[in-house]
Every structure is written in structure tokens, then in C-alpha cells.
């Protein structure tokens, strides 16, 4: 699935839920299924700034695609991280860097999460995009390197 398709699927999943308690149930469930980060990556430099709860995010390149693992000390946050990972994991840096992200607003998360939580979500998004841009730049310069 493309990043766009992933988002549309999430939006559709959430659209069937009547109220916010149900949506939270779902978010929490997704959090429980999140591929856990290796404990050795739970270090301060893997922490994402701007979250009231702690969020660790690790990125790895596998076959030209970025794979994210993450964890949080708060369960709902973990669920939100999981949404991010679902959308972004397994795509190339270029795809991620160029993607347009609309599912957060579409699901209503930006309006209904507490502001610190939704700020945290935006920090996460920023961090993921930054990783992608960095990887993309690196691979570009390597490419340029071999062509020299």
C-alpha cells in the first residue's frame, strides 16, 4: 500500500466508530500491536521532544525502505505512535519526504486530543520526515559520490 492508501484505510477504520471512547479503544489496541523497539534504543537521543509522555523512535534502512520501531510509557501515546508507524514504515525515504499527511486531521485527532498530546503527534511527524529527508540526502550524496 502507498502512504496515501494507508491513510485512507485508517480513516475508513475510524469512521465506523461512533464515539471517542470507541476510537480510543482502537488506538489502544493498535498500541498493543506496535512492533516494539529494541530496549537498547530506549536512550535519550531516541526520545522525541515535545511529548508530555516519553516516546522513543528508532529508524532502520532495510532494502532501501525505512522501518520504524517505537515505544512510549503511555498507552494512548503508543497507539498514536503506532498509527504513524503503520502509515510510514516500509516506504522509501523519498516517498516519506514527499508524502502529504492528512489522516490526523481527517480522523479528528488534532481537535480531540489534548493539546500537548497532539503537539506530540506533530513532533513525531516532524521527526519522521526529518529522518526521511536525512536518509534521502545521504543516499543522494552517495550516488553523486560514485558518479564522480
Amino acid at each position, binding site marked *: 500500500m502507498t502512504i496515501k492508501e494507508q491513510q485512507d484505510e485508517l480513516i475508513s477504520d475510524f469512521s465506523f466508530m461512533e464515539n471517542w471512547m470507541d476510537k*480510543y479503544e482502537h488506538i489502544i489496541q493498535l498500541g498493543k500491536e506496535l512492533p516494539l523497539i529494541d530496549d537498547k534504543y530506549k536512550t535519550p537521543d531516541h526520545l522525541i521532544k515535545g511529548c508530555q*509522555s516519553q516516546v522513543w523512535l528508532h529508524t532502520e534502512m532495510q532494502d532501501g525502505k525505512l522501518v520504524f520501531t517505537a515505544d512510549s510509557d503511555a498507552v494512548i501515546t503508543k497507539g498514536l505512535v503506532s498509527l504513524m508507524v503503520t502509515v510510514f514504515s516500509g516506504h522509501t525515504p523519498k516517498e516519506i519526504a514527499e508524502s502529504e499527511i492528512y489522516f490526523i486531521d481527517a480522523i479528528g485527532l488534532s481537535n480531540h486530543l489534548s493539546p500537548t498530546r497532539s503537539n506530540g503527534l506533530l513532533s513525531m511527524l516532524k521527526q519522521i520526515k526529518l529522518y526521511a529527508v536525512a536518509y534521502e540526502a545521504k543516499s543522494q550524496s552517495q550516488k553523486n559520490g560514485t558518479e564522480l
Partner: protein
Amino acid sequence: MQHVPDITVPALDVEKIRKDFPLLQEKVYGQPLVYLDNAATTQKPQVVLDTLIEYYTRINSNVHRGVHHLSQEATNAYENSRKIIASFINARKPEEVIFTKGTTDGINLIAYSFGRGEIKPGDVVLASAMEHHSNIVPWQMMCEDRGAELKIIPMDEKGELLMDEFSALLTDKVKIIAVTYVSNSLGTVNPVRDIIAQAHARNIPVLLDAAQAVQHMPVDVQELDVDFLVFSGHKIYGPTGTGVLYGKEEWLDRLPPYQGGGDMIKTVTFAKTIYNVLPYKFEAGTPDISGAIALGTAVQYVQQIGVENIQAWEEQLVEYAVQQLQQIEGIRFIGNPRHRSGAVSFLVYDIHPYDLGELLDKQGIAIRTGHHCAEPVMDFFCIPGTVRASFAVYTTFEDIDRLVAGIKKAVSMLR
């Protein structure tokens, strides 16, 4: 239905009182609001809002020095509010009541002026282990400026001050003690009479942070014999941006002023400025006139209900809350003081307080999570924060029932 304990003092008609507060009639996420974040700020009764509007539509004008009618009316109302507040805390004179922006403003004022006037390098300031940041940081800044040292009265696991250690800390180096009357994060009511007596035996003045006290219990500054006392208007049903600093006249006369500007001076030349008398010496610039006047109304509202009646009612609420919350599996109270007022802090299993808070919110229940601006307390208990439910005169037993049910539901989802 939960068991409601015997209500010994039904001197207070809570249903009638609730009608006075427009915001309590609101719904949140389709649910009637349960507002249990009163330690952060209280809701305002209609009379307070009416006072604000009456002020702005009838007498709004700058106070003091004005020759015209509106200015006269505004000045009268403003100074009358000072008298109401003075009598509420039983100050000797209205001049001992200084209007501030809030507790934080009041503490900064005293920390600065006291530091400037009284503190030498090597002196010591005492605060307690359960202070709000607002009663730590101003003293840290002042101590840094003056080469003094901030020492801490420790507490135990129950959240009670270790009074022996306090006595041991009382050396001749100690120049002032700043301590909270009631802890906002633990609910502990401190033995302030004992603290003041021991301090005064050594001629050390005491500042009480009464931000969580004046709305919950009778506070009489003469009976306490306290030197400085501060509180926030917005936590006692008054407008945001208001507060009170009480200081004994001797002290306020003796300390240098804090902010400079209009009203706080008698005469100004570029060479020399002569400061005004109390209370103006400490009220530089146009004050929050509407806020101060409406704070007077809020205090009168409390007086009409009777602060003793509020205390009796809230003691039952706290007792009931502790009793009901205890029955939640996995709950752990943060702070278990013998004498508690206004707030209950807790955690459930290892659930992040933030998660619990979010799911309570979605059920229409407003509580606060986090460190409650008392990080040293969180560090002491080695926790990132707590969930805190805090009460007011309009809180009901049903509110607490909804809280307990809400927690149970949230816990079942989160585990």
C-alpha cells in the same frame, strides 16, 4: 448507588450553589461536566460576572488621583474591595492588603523585596519539600542574586513535613521561611502554627503560600501571626489575573518596593524618587481594577456561604473520595497525610496519568494530570506525575461517583 456517609453539617445547599455557576451547567462530549480541577482554577459564580459587567458598563475609569465622578466611583469600589479582603483574612488594616496578579506575583514580590532589603551572602531561606514551583524558583533566583542558600524542610512518604528536621534547620542564618499552607499536589495541610511559633522564637518571619488554603478553611492572619500570606483570586471563585499579598505593616513599611511606576511613588525627579505609603508603594501601574473589585465579590460570596460551612462540606467530600477511590483495584495514593484538604492525588497500577486523564476527559470528567508544578514532589516519589482530583464548594458526591466509575472504565480499557 454508592454509600453516602452521614452528612453531619448540611449547612450548605449544594444544589442551590451549583445554580450560581453558569459553567457547571455545560456539557462536555455530550456529558454533564464533572469539574474536579479546582486546585488549578475554580469556576466563577454569576455575581462575580455581574460585578465585572457592572464595573465596565457603569464606572470603568482609572483609579486614584482622578477628579471626575467615574474615577471616584471606581476608586471607591476598588478600595472597598481591599477592605472586604482585609476583613476576610482579618488583617489589622486594609493597607496590609496588596493586590497582585496572583500567588506567583506575590511570592516574587516578597522574594525580590526581602532579598534586596534583608538578605546578605551566606544567609539561608527555608522552603519545604512540597512547594509549588512558584514558591521555589523566586527564592532560587533571589538566593543566586544575593549569594544566599535555599534549604529544604524534608517530608516523609505520607507527604508530611518532618518537623524535627525543620527545628534542626533553624539556625541564625535563616532569614525567612516560605512554606505552603496546603500542598497542591498532595493535599497535605501543614502545621503552620507550629512552624510560625518556632520561627518567631528566633525572630524569623514566615511567608505562607495560601493558594490552596483560603478557599477551603478559615484563615485569620492575626491569629496565625503570619508575616506574609499570598493567594490567587482565580482559585477562590474570583477572576483570573488577580491575587492578594498580605503583609504585616511593619514588614511592608520596612521592605524596599518591587515594581516602579505610577501610583507607587510620592514624588519623582530624575535625581530622587520618594515612595508612596502603603498599599500604593507595592501597587505600581494601573491595577486590574475590574479584577480586584470582582475578587471582592467572590470573597463576599464565600463569606455568605460561610467558609466554615465550605470546610465542613469539603472535608466530607475528601473523606468520601478517599473511601471510594480506595476500592479501585491497583490504586495508590500519592500522599496520605492525616490532615488533608481539597485534593486527592493517585496512580492506578502503572497506568500513565496522562492516559487516565485523557479517557476521563472523554467521559466529561475534568481532572489534572502531571507534576502539578511540583516536580520535586514527583522526584521524591519517583513518579512522572499523578492524577489529581480537587474539590470546591460546588462539588457533589455524585461527581465523585462519576469519577470513580470513569476511572474504572478507563482502567479496563488501558490494561
